């Protein structure tokens, strides 16, 4: 079970993680905890699979070229096509969704040429024509994911 401190660690430090020599000590100071307890709690939350990492969320549009891609794949072929898609280092998200276009994934590459190449290869191997849907404009500022009203406002 998560206690109030766990909830604060999960909610309040999604952005603005301290960039100074002892960040966990800084967080401990804010929450009234010793540094080693902050580290141990983050380690436990990570081991329980609630945290994927403490690190940067990068701006794709400044670092590389990326696109959302959708394919319509017969259900009995989904797992094998998903495996092909996942085998690319350039693919970071891949979801099955309930729609005619049912496989949705994000390809991020260092160059437009490599992006095209990956999508082309996936089309060839899956036998499906891809919907290629690059971002044209972002309207949303990434503030992290709001988990609890109480931890958010406290």
């Amino acid at each position, binding site marked *: 079970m998560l206690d109030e401190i766990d909830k604060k*660690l999960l909610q309040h*430090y*999604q*952005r603005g*993680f301290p*960039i*100074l*020599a*002892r*960040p*966990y000590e800084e967080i401990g100071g804010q929450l009234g905890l010793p*540094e*080693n307890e902050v*580290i141990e709690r983050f*380690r436990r939350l990570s081991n*329980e*699979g*609630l*945290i*994927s*990492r*403490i*690190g*940067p*969320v*990068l*701006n794709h549009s*400044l*670092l*590389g070229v*990326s696109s959302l891609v*959708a394919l319509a794949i017969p259900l009995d072929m989904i797992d094998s096509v998903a495996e092909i898609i996942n085998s690319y280092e*350039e*693919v*970071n*998200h*891949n*979801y*099955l*969704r*309930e729609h005619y276009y049912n496989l*949705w*994934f*994000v390809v*991020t590459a260092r160059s437009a040429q490599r992006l095209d190449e990956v999508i082309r290869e996936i089309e060839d191997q899956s036998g499906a024509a891809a*919907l*290629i*849907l*690059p971002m*044209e*404009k*972002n*309207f*949303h500022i*990434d*503030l*992290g*994911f*709001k*988990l609890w009203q109480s931890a958010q406002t406290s």
Partner: protein
Amino acid sequence: MAISTDQLIKTIQDGLPLCPRPYAQIAEQLEATEQEVIDAIADLVEDEVIKRLGVVVKHKKLGYVANAMVVWNVDDSIVHEIGDKLAAEPAVTLCYQRPRRLPHWPYNLFTMIHGKERQVVFGELQEIRQRLKLDCDFDVLFSSKCFKQRGARYF
């Protein structure tokens, strides 16, 4: 000595180490000083190469299992206005404009809404449509399986 941005991102993209002095540990790998790493990361945040630095949660594991991509066919003349309004809705966690691919795909605005149950997501969606007086075509694509989810890798 200046730290190479490529090397720094490669070293931190999978996460900071969970130890008392994470930036010193990164500095060791990069043969730089702790202060140089701290300054370089602060610069990347300042320049918005890093959109945010901190905890990346697995929302599904935390009970947010209803993950809906809601797509809208918004008239081009008002897409920026509607995009800003949708992005400001508390329930909306992403809001992007993307190209239509006619005739197969008529939608040009993409939003994500996460909830603990589908009913809650539909409720939020209904309220948003009423509040913003959105009568355009839309569709809701719930995810039923996650095959892969991690941060993008560049190197």
